[in-house]
Every structure is written in structure tokens, then in C-alpha cells.
């Protein structure tokens, strides 16, 4: 984590670095409020991606020739940048995957599945993204283990006592989101990890909504695994990261078989390459990984603390403005929130809200946001969600607020 402590934050200058934001949608300037689903990319990342293909592209590892060595060096450099970004103890703990979803599936299949017996439990929360539910259900169905969900209050806060009560002698893993993709709640990760560690239970943190919003230090955190995606942190889609403690990674069997993950292959038996390569079968998205390294550089050049401060101030403005709209109800009122504002507008269907906003060039997301159990808890089939990125400013919030008032009038009566 490199952060300039008092970095001057100039949102106009930052916004100007995102070419996709300089366009009109339906005759209006684009107001992009769907960064929780995926962020736009700064020019530096787009250029790095293109430059790699233009100048340095070849397959990595084992290439004797200059170009392959250059590509390998760029790929290695990206891993070092990610290692620094999350303050991992070693680059060997950083595994490149396709996305946070694949990272969680890897832990489910390779780490947890061999440890499960019928009647064992996996503890998650009610505010889980489906990516932190379904991989555990799959191995539960195969082994007879059970998924248990700790409740969330109607304010959108994890009930810590109920969470602690659900930890027992059969709990084999605890998994939770650092930040909820629907409620925006920042969970008390230190406290949750402490509860698990008291019982010696491994922890996976879904950090897909966290790494782009707050500083992450995996050595200080004390979790066993964290998962995140490149595309939500201003990097390319198709690249994600699994960080795991080296002792676990070394003990785990491979997830997929193929090239690069082997040490020696015969038809009788194959031995595995060392960590992290053991988990990186086949040619990866080399250019995407290199560009993700540049996304890390970009975030660090702005400063993650500065990003967090800017987004927190904007979220406060948005919460205040939207709360004043008649009939608008904000879902998720945790005191500690980041970046996400989910709401319903009277009885208007979220899809109708989003369709009308799109006509004004405003991009928000509707539906269940891959969290159907959480919506069921709040008695909703879906909701509308505006989510912020580093490039959003007060004018985006003003446009959203104005457009929502207009939508309310259009559908009235």
C-alpha cells in the first residue's frame, strides 16, 4: 500500500482520464453509477493493455527469445504490484484467476472440499453475493456439509451475536463480504476474523467490493483467503486474484490441470509446479494481468485513502439528497457504508426506474444484484442500486436526484 497522505484530490482531473465517461447517452452526458458491477477504465490502463499487445506480447514462461522474456517480466511485475497492493508477505501468495468468483470456487474445491464430512458446516452471512453462496453449496451437496447463514438486521448490519452463536465445533470455514454489494455495509472484518481465529476456523473474505474503496493489508487482516476481481478496481475484465496463506496454498491440490501448473508429466504420474503456478493452468489473460498491474499503479497514484474520502463524502451527499425524495426508501442504513446506495422508489418497479433513468443518460443497476436471499429477507424481488466510483462527482448525484423526482411524477396516478 503506497498512499500519498495528503494527495490533492481533483475529481475533474480524474474524470478526464476516463474516455468512456466522455460520451452522450440518449442525448445527455453519461452519468455512470454502476461501478459496483464494474468500473470504467482510465486511459493509463487502456493504453497499457494496448501497448503490451503492440510491443511486448508473446506467451510467457519458458520462452528463450527476447519477446517472451519481456512478456514474462511484465507478467511477473504485475504480480509484484498486486503483492504490494494488498501487502502480501510473498508474491507466491497471489494467484491470478478470472475473477473473484473463480477465486472462491478454487478455495471451495481445492481447500475446503477435501476437509468436509457429512454434517459439517460452512458459515456465511445473509448479505452474501451468490458467488459466496453457490460454490459452498456445490461442495456441500457433494459431501453432505451444510451452509449456514448468519442474519442481517433490517438496517443492513450483521448481527454479531447471532454470527458468533452460529460458530460451532462443526464449522469448517467462515466466509463473508468485506463490503456488501447491495447494502454497502462495511463489515467489522477484524472482529469477525477474531471470532473465527478463537476457534481455529479458516476465513475467506470476499473483497470484491473492498479493494477499490479502502486500504487492504492481508498480513494485518489475519484472514486465510481473500478474493477480488480486476474489473471492479479500474482494471480489465477477465482477471481476478486469490490471495491465500502460503501454508494453505502449498498443502492444497491443484484446481485445474493443464500446462504451466506441472513440474513433470508422464502418463503414469504428474508432479505439480510450485505455488502460485500450481493453480494457474493454461495460458492466462497475460495482457489483462499486465493491465491490472497498471490499474494498481493508477489507484496508488490517486491514493486509496483519497479515493475513500471522496467516495464517503459523495455517498453522504447522495444519501441526504435521495432521502428527501418522497416515497424513496434506502435499503441498507448501516453507519459504516461504502459506495453503494440501494433503494426503492414507492411502488415503482426498479426496472421501470432504471429504464427511465437510462433515457436521461443515467446508468444504474436493477434486479437482485446476485443476492436473492438478501432481497427475500427485505421482502423485495429486486431493487435499484446506484454505486459510486472515484470519477463520480456532485453533478452525478444532482442528475440522479432530479431524474428520480421526474420518474416519481411520471409514474404517479
Amino acid at each position, binding site marked *: 500500500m503506497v498512499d500519498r497522505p495528503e494527495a490533492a484530490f481533483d475529481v475533474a482531473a480524474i474524470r478526464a482520464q476516463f474516455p468512456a465517461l466522455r460520451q452522450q447517452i440518449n442525448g445527455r452526458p453519461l452519468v455512470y453509477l454502476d461501478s459496483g458491477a464494474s468500473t470504467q477504465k482510465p486511459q493509463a490502463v487502456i493504453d497499457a493493455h494496448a501497448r503490451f499487445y503492440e510491443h511486448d506480447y508473446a506467451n510467457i514462461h519458458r520462452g528463450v527469445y527476447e519477446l517472451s522474456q519481456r512478456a514474462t517480466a511484465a507478467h511477473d511485475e504485475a504480480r509484484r504490484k498486486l503483492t504490494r497492493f494488498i501487502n502480501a508477505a510473498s508474491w507466491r501468495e497471489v494467484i491470478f484467476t478470472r475473477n473473484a468468483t473463480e477465486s472462491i470456487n478454487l478455495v471451495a474445491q481445492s481447500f475446503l472440499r477435501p476437509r468436509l464430512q457429512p454434517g459439517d458446516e460452512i458459515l456465511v452471512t445473509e448479505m452474501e453475493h451468490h458467488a459466496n453462496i453457490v460454490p459452498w453449496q456445490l461442495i456441500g451437496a457433494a459431501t453432505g456439509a451444510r451452509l449456514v447463514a448468519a442474519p442481517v438486521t433490517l438496517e443492513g448490519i450483521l448481527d454479531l451475536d447471532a454470527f458468533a452463536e452460529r460458530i460451532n465445533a462443526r464449522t469448517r470455514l467462515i466466509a463473508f463480504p468485506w463490503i456488501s454489494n447491495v447494502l454497502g455495509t462495511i463489515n467489522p472484518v477484524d472482529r469477525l476474523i477474531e471470532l473465527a481465529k478463537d476457534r481455529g476456523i479458516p476465513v475467506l473474505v470476499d473483497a470484491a467490493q473492498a479493494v477499490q474503496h479502502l486500504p487492504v493489508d492481508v498480513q494485518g487482516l489475519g484472514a486465510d483467503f481473500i478474493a477480488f476481481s480486476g474489473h471492479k478496481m479500474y482494471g480489465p475484465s477477465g482477471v481476478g486474484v486469490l490471495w491465500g496463506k502460503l501454508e494453505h496454498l502449498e498443502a492444497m491440490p491443484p484446481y485445474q490441470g493443464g500446462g504451466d501448473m506441472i513440474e513433470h508429466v508422464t502418463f503414469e504420474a504428474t508432479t505439480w509446479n510450485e505455488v502460485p503456478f500450481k493453480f494457474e493452468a493454461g495460458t492466462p489473460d497475460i495482457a489483462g494481468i499486465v493491465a491490472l498491474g497498471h490499474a494498481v499503479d493508477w489507484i496508488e497514484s490517486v491514493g486509496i485513502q483519497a479515493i475513500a474520502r471522496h467516495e464517503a463524502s459523495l455517498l453522504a451527499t447522495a444519501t441526504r439528497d435521495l432521502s428527501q425524495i418522497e416515497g424513496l426508501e434506502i435499503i441498507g442504513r448501516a453507519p459504516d457504508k461504502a459506495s453503494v446506495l440501494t433503494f426503492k422508489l414507492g411502488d415503482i418497479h426498479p*426496472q421501470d426506474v432504471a*429504464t427511465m433513468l437510462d*433515457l436521461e443518460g443515467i446508468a444504474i443497476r436493477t*434486479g437482485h444484484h446476485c443476492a436473492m436471499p438478501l432481497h427475500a429477507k427485505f421482502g423485495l*424481488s429486486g431493487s435499484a442500486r446506484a454505486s459510486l466510483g472515484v470519477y463520480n462527482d456532485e453533478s452525478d448525484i444532482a442528475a440522479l436526484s432530479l431524474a428520480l423526482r421526474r420518474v416519481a411524477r411520471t*409514474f404517479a396516478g
Partner: protein
Amino acid sequence: MDQADSIAGEQKRIEDDFALLEDTRDKYEFIIELGKELKPMPDEQKIAANLVRGCQSQVWMTAELDPASGRLALRADSDAIISKGLVALVLRLYDKRLPAEILANPPDVFEAIGLGRLITPGRSNGLYAMVNRVRQFAEGFGQAAKA
């Protein structure tokens, strides 16, 4: 068949309705009005079995064959007003038509009124799925009529 009482005739009438609406917002406001006007389905028909798959909102549709005329009687509803307005347009085209006529007349009107991009499979409004469901009903009842 008389032009006035054909799917082609109805397509023309819808085109005329939309001809007066200049920008996309006006078109949507008109669709919202159609949605508000569509007679709601009885709650007991809003069941999972009648859901149209492929819509982000809930869209329900039922079809019955009127044995005397051989025509399909369609009913539909949605919990989202824009989807309800779109399904109202689908009903204007296809309700009380012969299965063969339905199958012979794709909903070209959406392209003609400048809303063609709404009727691609990936769109969340479900228009594509609604039209497909009508065609499935027409195919099913068309087969049954032949048997």
C-alpha cells in the same frame, strides 16, 4: 382477410399512434400509459406456471383457444409498468388471432416505431421473451388443432 382486421393492419395502427411521438421519452410515456390501461390479470392467474421466462420483471401470460373461432385468447400482466405497456402492444397484435396468422406475422412494428433495439434477446424488458411465448402458444394450439 380484411386489412382492418389483421395483424398487419394493427401494426399499421400502432405505427400511426407512435408517429406523433417524437423523442424516445414520449414513446416511453405512451407505453407507460398503455401499461396503466391494460386490464390486470386476476391474482390467481399470476402464478409461477404462467410466468414468461427471460424477463427481469415478472410477466405473466395465459392463452386459451376459442373452439368456435379457432382464435387464441391471450391475457398478460406484469409487475413493471413498462413491461406491462410492452405486453399490451404484444396483445394488440396477437390477441384473438388464428395461430397460423400469429406465426406468419413477426412483430416488425417495433422496428418501425424506432424501438427495435428493445426486441433483442439480451434486453431486460423481456419483449423478445413475450413474443416468443405468444409464438409458442400459437405453435402448441396450432398443432393441437391439426391433431
